[in-house]
């Protein structure tokens, strides 16, 4: 029962298969018209299990003539048999099913056309079934696109197909090899051939973007004929979409451009403000109540206004030069010596010593010293107690830096203010108190004393700083503040040294 079922199935299967289209119908009909004998022109087996043969009928058949065809065959010089099946293979065919098929045996067949009038027999046609195997064409050719992955660009296409009759391949009876070909749609005839393979899938990698046609065929390994081509597959490789890497690049690039724009258009113009916000400047030392700008460019009366609060400040006097009396005495007793109060006559007009090199600009510049360079300096030599003193006459006394300036800008005015300012006897040297009574005509700017010499006994000769010469020059006032600032460190040291020495 089962055998019958199998047979029926095979019958149906064979009936569904098309006869082998090896011969075009044109030549077929032409040859048929001419033929006087039938001719077996083609035998075919799809799986080495059964086969079919076709013959060309005789021509010149009149309408009423009834021609019967008979196919006789023998296997390997065995007995002659008639064709078991004239139907399954179509007209003028003989089908040998699996029970009638032997492999590796030679089938020799002849076809006889018999009609009422004549008989015609074809020449024998011998086949070994193993030699006429032509497998079916592969079917279900499909593709799937995959990202190439890694550093590769583009896509890879995974092609897959299948054999239409898988049971033919059972038990290893037939071993198939496949051959795939593909071409670009725009290049007809330029088929690229992949080497034969046993697997029924293949990955094509690195295909450029575009449309392709793919086809595949198969064959029994080592023998037989190639199958027909499968129906061609249209395949399109799309342009590569933005992958993760590209997105990241675009994102980073966009961020960078945006940052640049922000910096150029937003930050740079507001640079100073932002800088001030994040890094506040260290405040410069300020004198409470004094605006340094004022000193720089302020007018004299404004400055006076500011400084009036300070002790012993006497505002600048724009007056004529104050001539100090110069004594005509021969003895050059210096006003420095605390021994005797210097006569006023010993005051000399302060003249800027050329060695100072400073322009006698500031009205407060009391460093225009007593060093009148004239040999007739009012400052006489001390008694020989001070041998380290420079000899008078040998040169001018040059005190470019010893004299103290008016208190520097950083001086502690409060200190000055707290100390009682009162004239004291000259034997008590207290800086910055005046060491000797002010001469009545002495200008009130006798507040500042200048240390001039250090006596042998550690005594300091203080000299009242000379009145600053009033300067008609306007620019001098502006530089007052600067002078104040400039002279601070060395002079302060000198002053403090003095006071230390004294104490």
């Amino acid at each position, binding site marked *: 029962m089962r055998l019958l079922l199998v047979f029926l199935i095979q019958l149906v299967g064979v009936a569904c298969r098309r006869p082998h289209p090896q011969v075009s119908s044109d030549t077929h009909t032409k040859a048929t018209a001419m033929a006087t004998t039938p001719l077996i022109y083609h035998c075919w087996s799809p799986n*080495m*299990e059964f086969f079919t043969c076709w013959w060309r009928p005789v021509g010149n058949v009149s309408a009423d003539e009834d021609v019967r065809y008979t196919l006789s065959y023998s296997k*390997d*010089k065995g007995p002659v048999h008639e064709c078991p099946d004239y139907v399954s293979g179509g007209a003028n065919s003989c089908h040998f099913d*699996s029970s009638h*098929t*032997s*492999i*590796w*045996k*030679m089938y*020799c067949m002849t076809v006889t056309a018999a009609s009422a009038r004549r008989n015609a027999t074809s*020449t*024998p*046609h*011998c086949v*070994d079934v*193993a030699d006429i195997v032509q497998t079916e064409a592969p079917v279900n050719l499909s593709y799937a696109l995959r990202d190439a992955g890694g550093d590769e660009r583009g896509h890879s296409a995974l092609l897959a197909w299948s054999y239409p009759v*898988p*049971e033919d*391949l*059972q*038990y*290893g*009876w037939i*071993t198939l090899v496949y051959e795939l070909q593909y071409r670009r749609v725009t290049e007809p005839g330029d088929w690229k051939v992949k080497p034969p393979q*046993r697997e029924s899938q293949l990955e094509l990698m690195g295909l450029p973007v575009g449309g392709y046609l793919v086809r595949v065929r198969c064959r029994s*390994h*080592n*023998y037989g004929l190639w199958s027909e081509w499968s129906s061609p597959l249209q395949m399109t490789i799309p342009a590569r979409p933005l992958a993760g890497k590209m997105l990241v690049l675009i994102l980073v690039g966009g961020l960078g451009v945006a940052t640049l724009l922000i910096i150029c258009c937003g930050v740079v113009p507001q640079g100073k403000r932002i800088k001030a916000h994040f890094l506040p400047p260290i405040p410069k030392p300020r004198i409470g109540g004094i605006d340094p700008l004022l000193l720089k460019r302020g007018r004299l009366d404004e400055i006076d206004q500011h400084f009036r609060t300070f002790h012993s400040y006497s505002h600048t006097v724009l007056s004529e030069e104050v001539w100090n009396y110069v004594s005509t005495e021969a003895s050059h007793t210096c006003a420095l010596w605390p021994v005797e109060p210097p006569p006023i006559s010993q005051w000399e007009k302060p003249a800027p010593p050329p060695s100072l090199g400073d322009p006698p600009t500031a009205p407060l510049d009391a460093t225009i010293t007593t060093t009148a360079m004239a040999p007739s300096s009012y400052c006489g030599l001390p008694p020989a107690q001070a041998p380290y003193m420079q000899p008078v006459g040998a040169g001018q006394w040059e005190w470019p830096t010893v004299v103290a300036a008016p208190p520097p800008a950083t001086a502690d005015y409060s200190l000055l203010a707290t100390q009682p300012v009162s004239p004291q006897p000259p034997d008590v040297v207290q800086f910055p108190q005046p060491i000797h009574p002010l001469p009545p005509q002495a200008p009130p700017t006798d507040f500042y004393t200048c240390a001039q010499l250090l006596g042998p006994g550690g005594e300091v000769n203080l000299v009242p700083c000379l009145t600053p010469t009033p300067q008609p020059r306007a620019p001098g006032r502006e530089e007052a503040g600067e002078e104040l600032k400039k002279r601070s460190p060395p002079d302060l040291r000198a002053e403090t040294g003095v006071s230390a020495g004294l104490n």
Partner: protein
Amino acid sequence: HPLIDSQRLFSIAVNRIQHLHMLAERIFSELESSLQIEEQRQLNKIFLPDFCNSDSIISPIDKHETQRSSVLRLLTVSYRLIESWEFPSQSLPGGSVLRNQISPKLSELKNGIHILIRTSQGAGDALVEADPMSPYGGYYQALGGDGSLRKSYEMLACFKKDMHKVETYLTVAKCRLSPEDNCTL
């Protein structure tokens, strides 16, 4: 492990016979292409069977019978077929290069099949003994003497057929042992 060894040996044997079959096909098609078209047609259609000396060896002739045969039987038949060509292959027509390749390969394959038979059945070499009825050696020498085209054609056709047989039998036997190995769907 005997099973794995057997599979490995089968793989080797199948590879070897596939190669021999491919050589046989190549030699035959070279001869065929050197013929005139008319000669081709004649030879293809008229020559009579029963000229192969291996016809005396009984072997399965279709899929059903092959599937029914035991592995041992398939191996034995293959062994005999290979043995029948071991020496006559030296008088095969065609280029001497190919001819010199074929005979040693046949000997190697014969030994391999012998080993497979031994691992398959264990003991008893009774089936392997050569059939004394067939004088393998002399058959083709007698034929090949006159160097006729027909004789060459027939000899090559026989050789090709027998190689195909052995390849089919060994492939089926191998699939029987490891069914998942490229055998079916």
